[in-house]
């Protein structure tokens, strides 16, 4: 019974939060609602017994990704209201509903026809984290390593894209030269 209550509660909250995200005109509200939604989704993971996943969700999504978005929002003028060009909202809503139904149908088909066999079955007795570890480092090792490289590449690209004066490497100059450069820059700013 608790499960049911928890499910419905968090379901309602999640839907409400995400609804706010897509409909509000204030960017800050959208960000906040998104962050809240992420937390509530991790609740689902805990209900489902996917503890590791739930923890990852909070740490990565609500922590890192949301922080990134928050920093990103500092660059842009967030007080300004975003003007929405209203296309035909019936088309929009209709299409998305249709897409959603189709996705579910495709996912549900094997299930309805009882055509499913478990590829990596759960090992009884071990905690979820241990099970995840066992599967991750044996059968999903290559994707894991590739994902790591991908994260590295993403990090570097983020630095390159957002950084200033990237062609200048400060570690190669000694202190005196760096002071000179600072003075030049200050002159430029003042004049």
């Amino acid at each position, binding site marked *: 019974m608790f499960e049911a209550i928890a499910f419905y509660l968090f379901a309602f909250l999640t839907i409400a939060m995400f609804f706010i995200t897509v409909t509000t005109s204030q960017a800050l509200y959208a960000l906040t609602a998104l962050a809240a939604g992420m937390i509530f989704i991790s609740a689902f993971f805990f209900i489902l017994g996917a503890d590791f996943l739930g923890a990852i969700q909070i740490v990565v999504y609500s922590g890192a990704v949301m922080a990134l978005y928050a920093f990103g929002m500092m660059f842009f003028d967030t007080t300004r209201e975003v003007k929405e060009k209203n*296309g035909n909202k019936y088309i929009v809503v209709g*299409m998305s509903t*249709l897409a959603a139904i*189709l996705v579910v149908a*495709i996912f549900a088909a094997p299930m309805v026809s009882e055509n499913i066999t478990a590829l990596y079955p759960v090992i009884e007795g071990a905690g979820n984290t241990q099970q995840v570890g066992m599967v991750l480092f044996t059968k999903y090792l290559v994707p894991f390593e590739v994902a790591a490289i991908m994260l590295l590449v993403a990090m570097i690209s983020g630095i390159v894209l957002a950084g200033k004066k990237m062609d200048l490497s400060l570690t190669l100059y000694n202190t005196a030269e760096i002071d000179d450069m600072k003075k030049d820059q200050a002159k430029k700013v003042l004049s």
Partner: protein
Amino acid sequence: MEKYLYIALFAPLVGSMFAALFGAKPKTLIAGLLPSILLLVSLVASSILLLHILGGGDVVHVEMMTWMATGDLYIPFGFVVDQVSVTMMMVVTLVSTVVHFYAIGYMDHDKGFNRFFAWLSAFVFSMLILVMSDNFAGLFIGWEGVGLCSWGLIGFWYHKESATWAANEAFIMNRIADLGMLIGIFLVYWNTGTLQYAEAFAAMQSLDIEILTWMGIFLFIGAMGKSAQFPLHTWLADAMEGPTPVSALIHAATMVTAGVYLVVRSNELYALIPNIGLFIASLGAFVAIFAASMALVNRDIKRVIAYSTLSQLGYMFAAAGLGAYWVALFHLMAHAFFKALLFLGAGNVMHAMHDELDPFKMGGLGKTMKGTMILMTLASVALAGIFPLAGFFSKDLILEVAFVDYHFIIYGVLLLTAGLTAFYSFRIIALIFHGEDRHTALGHHPHEAYSFMLWVMAPLAVLAVIAGALKGTYFEMVTTVLPATEYHVHSAATYWIMTIGTQLFVLLAIYFAYKKYISKDIKIPDGTSEMENSIGYKILKNQYYIPYFYEEFLVKPYRELSKVLWKQVDMKVVDATVDGIAGIIYTTGEKTRDMQSGNLSTMLKWMVAGTIAMLSLAVVFGLAVRHQDEINTILSSLGVM
């Protein structure tokens, strides 16, 4: 012997192509001389073939090459020289040679000298194909060829609108008749399985009379167009817009006789359907008197001669319709000679009078143009059918045929026409050459034509005189292929009464014409005299208002219909459809260009739409795979798989 056949057939073609090389250049004598010489060569070859046939030689039958061999249809380019075709060949080549040499003088000052000879020789080539071919398809090729060359020659002076109009009229009327001929040819092929004369006629003996009737009718419709029988006759008079040598060759001796040739060649068919033959004969008789009546009052010498041709064609068809094929062919031959002579003489007169055509404006030309006067008078006497010239033997024979077979109405009509023929022929002669000089007052100073032109016309005159004597040899020769019915009137007394009576009637008509038109009081009619305003005169002058009728009730509605079809159907339906298809593609392109607007929002929407489409496909296919057996049963019950 085959080589003579090929020489006779292809020499005119070589001449034509040679002259065509000079087509755009100014007058070059060789471009006229060489085709004429080549035609002389063709004439010699035809004569050799004639002697061969006369001497009892075999019929020369060659198959040059295969034209079509598809399925059951086999049509070769085959040529046959038998008694009938050698007669036609002689006529064609003889008259053509004379006309070619004459035209060197006639077209002397014409800018299109070279082009003229190209067309003229091409015409002779087509006509030879027509008469020498041994199957209906070759006949049709020649048929169309002469139609085309006739168009080019009638409309020779193409900057004259009346000439081009007449050329189109001739060609279109021929085309209308050709439809009938084509249907006839189709019927022949369909029912007999072959287009070769020999096999087709043999197969026809065993066919149903109804089919034969239709065949005969349709083939005769084709002949009607080519030989200008009523109601497709208006083009012949208008065809006088072309140069006079053209009229002499085409509209006297050759093209218009192609219809008679067709009927003569198909005599085995027409012998099986005597009712159609009677109809042909009646139509021929009607045309004879119809044309003669229009010639009585006409004031254009070439037109009068054209009506005379029409009238004589009626005689030929009357003979052919009554089953006297050899008589029709004989009259064709004799008529070719004196009619061509008449036309050429008229050409001389026209040249002398600077293309003046009204005989009332001439008069007294006999003093200055003696040679032409003699030749034309000779030709007119022959035309009138006075013994012992050629016309007597051929025309009176036709009258005998009609009398002997108890077709008294036809006989009566033809007899009356003979009188009218004599009258109008000598009306013209009298007005032009005799009587008072009316032309000097109008400023004309005529002179005789070049003497070589007169010499060239001489052979025709000789033949017009002596052709009657050839009747015996001709009869012996030609009846090997044609039915050899001899026509003997029942009693000698009737025969003599008939002959003498006809001669007297004709002579009376000539005397009457002379008396009326030689008199000194002839004035140039200017529309005010009582006769000119009488109803009969008006009807005859306007050709019984038939051209007017055609113009009002056939040409104009057809033109309106064409306009409607053009504007409403072609432009609005056909063009609109084609443009619509292009337009659809265009607008589709324009609309889908918005997909690439660069606007991310729109592209996202399209992306979602595309995703939905692919997902749907996945679902549908997945379901199809799952229920494959049911789908197969449904489709097979529908008969698809």
